[in-house]
């Protein structure tokens, strides 16, 4: 019971309990919830009685967009630095790259976010420090007849609309949050790429390619990295869960109106149905992504299909 409910009329509380179905026995409530889940119904919010499912779906595109760009930054940065470290094994450059990887692992994502906000947002004023876009700049998406088709991803919608100004604005707002999350996640890709490349660079086919006189970069990126990349792909699937966790903190830091911010706000209202719904949604999402990665894996590595 919330603290203000002590002063509430008993009939009002009774009505609220009936509205939310809390007057039924616990096991009935549980099966009601499971039944609803099968139909995609996550129940009603305890705070405003509106369907949790709808709230989650309207907040999700923001999180998805942030997740996609952070993952791109994390993988590109991690793989490039990892390859570099493996090629310069045991030199000063390699050691600095490794230390960078360890530090990104130890830094709380919201602290990094605040530091970046302070540097690029407040002192240099290069990038905005919060929210997704100015309210007047919201892209509508593709216009077919009188209807707008939109994905909810602002960078995609603005391109569909054909408005480059909006696209650049959306990117500017995305930059700091996705850089923050990307930097924190890149350490694990860096480490993985580095160890895998160290092993792959020692294999015979790499030596053979070098002996044939191929360019150093061709050998590294088209021969060795292709083989060292598969574990990185698996890790992308596994890291998706960590990405969602990081998104909660990043969104709160940057007032990014996604699922993470939604969860945190609802925690403060003790809106249990909303929290529960978001968690079920996160779980489903992680399961789906793992499945997708497994399928992709079989597609990329023919050995799996044999």
């Amino acid at each position, binding site marked *: 019971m919330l603290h203000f409910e002590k002063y509430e009329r008993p009939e009002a509380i009774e009505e609220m309990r009936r509205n939310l179905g809390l007057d039924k026995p616990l096991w009935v409530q549980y099966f009601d919830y499971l039944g609803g889940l099968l139909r995609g119904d996550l129940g009603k919010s305890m705070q405003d009685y509106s369907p949790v499912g709808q709230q989650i779906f309207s907040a999700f595109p923001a999180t998805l967009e942030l997740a996609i760009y952070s993952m791109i930054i994390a993988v590109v940065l991690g793989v490039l630095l990892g390859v570099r470290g493996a090629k310069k094994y045991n030199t000063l450059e390699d050691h600095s790259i490794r230390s960078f990887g*360890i*530090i990104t*692992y*130890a*830094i*709380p*994502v*919201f*602290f990094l976010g*605040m*530091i970046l*906000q*302070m540097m690029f947002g*407040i*002192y240099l004023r290069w990038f905005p*420090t919060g929210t997704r876009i100015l309210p007047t700049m919201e892209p509508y998406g593709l216009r077919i007849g009188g209807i707008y088709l939109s994905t909810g991803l602002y960078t995609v919608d603005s391109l569909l609309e054909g408005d480059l100004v909006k696209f650049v604005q959306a990117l500017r707002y995305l930059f700091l949050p996705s850089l923050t999350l990307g930097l924190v996640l890149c350490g694990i890709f860096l480490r993985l790429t580095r160890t895998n490349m160290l092993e792959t660079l020692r294999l015979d086919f790499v030596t053979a390619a070098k002996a044939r006189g191929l360019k150093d970069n061709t050998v590294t990126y088209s021969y060795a990295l292709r083989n060292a990349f598969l574990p990185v792909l698996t890790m992308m699937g596994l890291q998706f*869960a*960590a990405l*969602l*966790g*990081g998104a*909660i*903190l990043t969104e*709160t*830091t940057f007032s990014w109106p996604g699922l993470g911010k939604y*969860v*945190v706000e609802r*925690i*403060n209202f*003790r809106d*249990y149905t909303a*929290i*529960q719904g*978001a*968690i079920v949604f*996160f*779980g489903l999402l*992680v*399961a789906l992504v*793992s499945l997708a990665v497994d399928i992709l894996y079989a597609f990329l590595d023919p050995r799996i299909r044999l």
Partner: protein
Amino acid sequence: MKRIRQSILGQLVPGLSSLPRRGSAGWITIIGFVIVVTIVLMTLLAPWISPRDPSRTDDRVIAIPPSQGFPLGTNHLGQDVLSRLFWGGSIMLQVAVVSVLLCLAVGVPIGLLSSYAGGIPDKVTSLLMDSIYAFPGLVLAIAIAATLGRGVVNMALSIAVVYIPSYFRVIRSQVLTIKELSYTEAAESMGAKRRTVISSYILPNVVPSIVVVATVNFADAILTAAGLTFVGLGVSYDIPDWGYDLVNGRALLPSGAWWVITFPGLMIVLLALGFTLIGEGLSELLNPRLEQ
């Protein structure tokens, strides 16, 4: 128990004194130890070394940059940032210690017993552990902490639930190998009891990995505790805490008061870094084959 103690002491104590001779991995471990010990000592000695009362507010000195009187400046309530730095680690350290102990107390026995027993019990626990493992850790911790309410033990519990599967997985993979080794088989065929086999033949060989997992877990627990505090599920606003100082410092950010967040944030980074370095160094020292 004696054998386990011997195995821990037997491997760790000579190991510690020989660290400087073990190359870069040894030095990484030493640096990690120095960082962690310094921060723990600082927190323990806080009542004697901090220049001011960390909780005393003073509206005449609000958000003053680092200066003579306040070496690290003051925050939005006029509290001394340096004194709060000395005091602020206690909650985080307590939460980390309790959660690691919980993980050890639950994860290790479950890992040993279920993977030694094999069959259906092993399948069921593995399934359960894998499903927790696959879940976004922070999301789960937030959900549990939000349900349990505030407090050091509750926070530690919500973190422990998230990290028990990592112990389980490491222990299970090792037990499955050791179980098949000839000396374990020999002990079993000579009529050693199940308890003896697990505690005297299997556990001592798993201990090094448990030590590595536990150190890395310390770093994770600290970061998760900071994250929980950041979303408003911390222990108490009244106790100085680096996590809360970061949250409160956000309000001063637009005015450019960098000192309010930078110092507590760096302390969290240092503490997590210390444990990460120990874990990194130890795992290299204990599995020499990994880094060749």
